[in-house]
């Protein structure tokens, strides 16, 4: 140790130790309600779920530690596990891109200077706040084979009608179409993003002779990629956890065509009282969602522009 550094060390020792400032305390006090809620109602259940995934547990009695048996059962013996994984991936592959495309398109339309924009924005957002059960009942009537409005439209176009909810090949597309019902939230976020794009960029492009599609793909889409990225992550997480529509409208049928992963998890947790096994399913879902989120996040370097 040099004399200089020794001197500095003494000086530091002579100074009063930094203490928690009143300002810091104030911050902690303000976030305490959230923090307490997070610890009690989020972190604790998450940790509990991890632990119980290694147990045979009915959620009310004593948990019996059984090691990896729940995971082994899911991956090798549960005939509905892979069925539900398959159906969920199908749902995600259909609903997420379609949802982003539809929300973005709507946002572009509603960003135009036309009369009554506020009214249309409200109308398109409204379904997002309609209770799920009510929405599902409406959609059941829309999908009805004999009197449904979708089949009525197909007939007008001279196309054959579809058994949306009774044909195993069409039940999942029906669920995917129905997922468009709740694109209002994503649309609002896109709209906010669109309004943040500087107008002078479009003016400069116009001066350079850019036409509409060129402005869209040269300015709008690149500058909207952070918003697309955000909506993609949110859409993926929501799609992995999709449950309500399938639970109420099809109960997983027909012939397991809409047996989403969360529905399978729900059955094990609340119908069979197999909370340990359901916890293992939840942990696997968490790992997959987390992994895919990381992958998408890493890929964002290549396609998301922040400036």
């Amino acid at each position, binding site marked *: 140790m040099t004399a200089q550094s020794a001197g500095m060390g003494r000086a530091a020792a002579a100074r009063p130790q930094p203490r928690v400032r009143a300002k810091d305390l104030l911050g902690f006090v303000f976030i305490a*309600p959230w923090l307490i809620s997070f610890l009690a109602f989020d972190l604790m259940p998450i940790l509990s779920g991890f632990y119980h995934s290694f147990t045979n547990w009915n959620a009310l*009695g004593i948990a019996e530690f059984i090691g990896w048996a729940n995971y082994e059962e899911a991956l090798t013996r549960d005939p509905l596990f892979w069925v539900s994984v398959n159906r969920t991936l199908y749902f995600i592959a259909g609903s997420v891109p379609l949802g982003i495309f539809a929300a973005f398109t709507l946002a572009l339309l509603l960003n135009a200077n036309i009369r009554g924009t506020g009214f249309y924005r409200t109308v398109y957002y409204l379904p997002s706040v309609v209770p799920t059960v009510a929405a599902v009942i409406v959609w059941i009537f829309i999908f009805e*084979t004999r009197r449904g409005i979708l089949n009525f439209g197909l007939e007008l176009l001279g196309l054959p009608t579809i058994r949306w*909810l009774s044909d195993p090949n069409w039940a999942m597309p029906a669920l995917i179409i129905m997922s468009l019902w709740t694109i209002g939230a994503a649309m609002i976020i896109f709209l906010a993003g669109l309004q943040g794009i500087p107008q002078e960029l479009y003016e400069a492009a116009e001066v350079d002779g850019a036409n509409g599609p060129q402005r869209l793909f040269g300015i709008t889409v690149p500058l909207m990629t952070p918003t697309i990225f955000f909506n993609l992550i949110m859409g993926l997480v929501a799609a992995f956890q999709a449950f309500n529509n399938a639970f109420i409208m099809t109960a997983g049928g027909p012939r397991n065509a809409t047996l989403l992963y969360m529905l399978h998890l729900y059955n094990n947790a609340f119908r069979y*009282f197999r909370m340990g096994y359901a916890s293992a399913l939840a942990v696997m879902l968490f790992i997959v969602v987390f992994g895919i989120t990381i992958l998408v996040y890493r890929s964002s370097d290549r396609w998301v522009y922040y400036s």
Partner: protein
Amino acid sequence: MSNRRSFGRSTLLAALALALLLGTLAGCVPAAPAPAGEAAAPAAPSAETIKVRFWNHWLAARVELIDQIIADFEQDFPNIDVENLGQPWDRREENMFAALASNDPPEVVMATRAELLKLANDGLIVPITDMVEEQGLDLDKFYPGEIGNFYWEGELYSMPMPTGGGISGMILINKDMFEAAGLDPVPPTTWQELWDAGKALTVIDDKGIVQIGANVGTSATSFFAWLYTNNGQIYSDDLRSVGFNSPEGIETLQWMVDYTNEINGGVQNVLDFYVTGQEANEAQPWYNDIEAMIFPNVSIFFHMQTIKPELQWDLGLRPYNANNPDAESHGLSGEEFAWGYVIPAGVPEEKREAAFEWIKKITYEEDGGGWFMIQQSRPSPIRSVNEDPSFYEANPAWDTVLASLESDVSVQIFPEHVRVRDIVEQAVQAAMFGDMTPEEALNDAAEQAQAIMDEFWSAQE
């Protein structure tokens, strides 16, 4: 100076924030009982009053009836305050589970027999055997098949209300539709008669079913019901092996598939026809004269009274397979539903007696659960109640209802039965959609179900 001023402001803010936090936390704490003599005191229960929260699914027109029983009960037991916690059907299992898992579960919870067995086996509800014996209750007043549904390992966990039977043993016909089709308005008694009637009454166009003769069902519940009318059974008598893939079982499923394909034009036609569900409401085919025969449970009489009292109907026993000399008409008791009322293990000792008194009122007492059944024109699990003359006045086919109850087979099930039912559901669907033959589907299901049974019994040992 400026430092002191800044600190003072921060301190003030911290104090405000702390007050806010304490206020928030205080909101999470249960309110203390209001001291006697304060304004709220008259509405608050007295110190000796025991609260019994009754978690149940008796909704719609039945809420008022339950409330009347509560009022009557509270006159007899002024120290017990029963709160009617009617619960929606949606996510029933999840909500019940959450209620049971809480530190403060409802004192009395309505549960199906399958759930009750599971909860009993896991020690999550308390037996009422001792309380029944202490009060010297005569359990012989119930039909044996009804009270028998609520025992597990020799202990009684509930008494029945409504009947566990009477849910699958009947066939109801729309007489006007029969006559319009040129048929005698008489309920079919065999599978073969049902087939012929169904064929005559079903109308199909290019979009599917316009009018249905009968839906023999596309689910495990229907399969089990038909299985017993072909002299089959779900499990062996000792509950150690599955029996639904017997020759009778395969014949039953084959008949259901054939009927659905040949008479109703396939399972998709049937699913489309009932796309808005089969619950009791005026939108359903039965109430719109486009469904000629149904296999109802006894609650139908109440619903017909309230939804379409002018409907012309007649009642018979569920048709059986006349080609099988050992087959007879049967309904099932206790396979699905068979509602009971249980006391969660989390209910404190001092409240259990009050909870039991309420269970007794809504199950055992003629002026409680018995009266509740009479008001709905549906049979009671108590024999004597069913002799009430008002039943015969309200229901011209009351003798058939009672005959159906007598024909019910009390099905032995084990605590994992719900899982087995779902496996059989998969098998029935596979056969209905033509992905497997009935024999392949049932054998596959039997293998899975047997594994669950074996695992269960080995864990018990």
